[in-house]
């Protein structure tokens, strides 16, 4: 197609030059032909303008003035005629309708014109003040009904992180076993690598796999791990994913039944480590930070990273639970600020102070209605 530098595209030139006869040429006008025939002349005119406008919008060009089109030489005019002929011959402007499952505003409902209203009591308003506002798209996307389920965020891991220590330990063992199996078969390729959670059966199969751990942490998988590889290779089923859940009590019992040596399994191999970390994220929702992942070299380290005792909020609480300070006879730890009143109470003077203050009808705490001591600022040299 020939390009003319002064005109961005042939279509734009067509758009600008066709302003006068837009309804006849535009594809949108063709679509509305039936409607035009059945409407009043005013509506038809309105529609024509709308069509011209919409055509310009579909072609995504800026509106060129008519004078620009008139300046094109005969060569350009010929090209335009050719283009117009092609369009009239049936070539359609490609539809820009976006395929989406979002609910967006469609269909315009037009109110009857005031002249068409037959109700004798109807009086058209002269100003917009006090009229009820109908429609509008201001808050369209605020309505959750206008959003489809496909637009909801779906993370790789579960939305809620697993926090129970026993469950985390069980899931870590499963992740480590599956990571080891994945590493063993990684060269063969995995169709659905470490993505599928599976149901209860898959989980039990993975947890039943026995692992022999050498002194240096090298793990050797015993029999019955091939079904687990098959589970890992299974494609994701359609619909809601099946998730295996285990209760904290069951998890505790299960964790006790294992030889604690499994926690010495080495994760120094980066392929295994990343596979396990990925599996951990899928199963528990915990993302192991890169900085931490670097320092994790055993399954025990991974468990320690995932299971975190709640941090004591106050230093006094921490001292009370951990520190040797509590046992020392010459140390006293107070959980809150020691106030002047506390100090008086410690030496047994507070009762007497209260009695004396009450006898004089003075406020016990604070200044009461007396305000601050005026002499204070004199003493401090502020006055």
């Amino acid at each position, binding site marked *: 197609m020939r390009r003319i530098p002064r005109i961005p595209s042939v279509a734009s030139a067509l758009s600008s030059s066709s302003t006068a006869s837009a309804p006849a040429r535009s594809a949108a006008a063709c679509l509305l032909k039936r409607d035009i025939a059945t409407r009043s002349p005013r509506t038809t005119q309105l529609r024509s303008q709308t069509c011209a406008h919409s055509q310009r919008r579909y072609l995504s060009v800026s509106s060129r003035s008519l004078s620009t089109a008139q300046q094109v030489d005969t060569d350009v005019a010929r090209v335009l005629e050719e283009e117009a002929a092609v369009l009239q011959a049936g070539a359609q402007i490609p539809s820009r309708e976006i395929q989406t499952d979002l609910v967006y505003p469609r269909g315009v409902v037009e109110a009857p014109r005031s002249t068409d209203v037959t109700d004798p009591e109807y009086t058209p308003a002269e100003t917009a003040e006090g009229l009820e506002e109908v429609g509008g798209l201001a808050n369209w996307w605020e309505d959750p009904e206008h959003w489809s389920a496909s637009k909801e965020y779906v993370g790789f891991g579960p939305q809620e992180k697993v926090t129970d220590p026993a469950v985390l330990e069980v899931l870590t063992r499963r992740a480590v076993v599956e990571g080891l199996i994945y590493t063993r078969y990684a060269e063969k390729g995995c169709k659905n690598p470490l993505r599928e959670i599976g149901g209860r059966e898959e989980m039990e199969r993975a947890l039943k796999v026995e692992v022999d751990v050498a002194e240096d942490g090298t793990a050797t998988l015993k029999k019955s791990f091939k079904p687990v590889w098959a589970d890992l290779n299974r494609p994701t089923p359609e619909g809601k994913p099946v998730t295996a859940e285990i209760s904290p009590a069951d998890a505790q019992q299960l964790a006790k039944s294992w030889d604690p040596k499994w926690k010495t399994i080495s994760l120094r191999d980066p392929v295994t480590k990343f596979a396990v970390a990925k599996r951990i994220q899928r199963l528990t929702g915990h993302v192991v930070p890169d900085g931490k992942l670097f320092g994790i070299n055993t399954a025990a380290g991974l468990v320690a990273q995932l299971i975190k005792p709640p941090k004591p*909020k*106050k*230093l*006094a609480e*921490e*001292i009370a639970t*951990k*520190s*040797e*300070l509590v046992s*020392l*006879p*010459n*140390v*006293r*730890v*107070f*959980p*809150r*600020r*020691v106030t002047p009143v506390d100090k008086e109470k410690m*030496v047994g003077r507070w009762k007497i102070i209260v009695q004396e203050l009450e006898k004089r009808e003075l406020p016990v705490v604070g200044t009461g209605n007396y305000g601050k001591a005026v002499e204070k600022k004199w003493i401090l040299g502020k006055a």
Partner: protein
Amino acid sequence: MTVKALQQISTGRNGVGAFILQCKKMDIHYCDWAGSSRGMNGFIKSILPQFAAAHPQIEFTVSPRPSKHPIIVGHYINGREKAICVRNMEPLQILKKAELLRDASGEKLKRVTKPVQSINDSVRGVWSPYHGNGMQV
């Protein structure tokens, strides 16, 4: 409440016969929230247990002082107090300050111009083992 000395017939010489540490109490204040207390919180957790165990004659009180810088207040048997602000200090720097308070006499700081200070000056001067006839042991 300070210890008031009884009217005494002879002047006590601390360190002659017995030594009484002049610092009798230390108040250790910290804040749970403020960053300037980070070192102090570490000091309380890691160093204070050993320090307090090594000084059973000093009473330690640990209490929060919210929204304030951490301080150590030393109380002395002469009735005076000495407070040191330890904001933004590391635990080991705070230990130095605690040792300073422990070793202080509680008196106001005075300019020291002479190597030996005495409340009962000797007319013969300071005894020296390197002068005179020597002593046969």
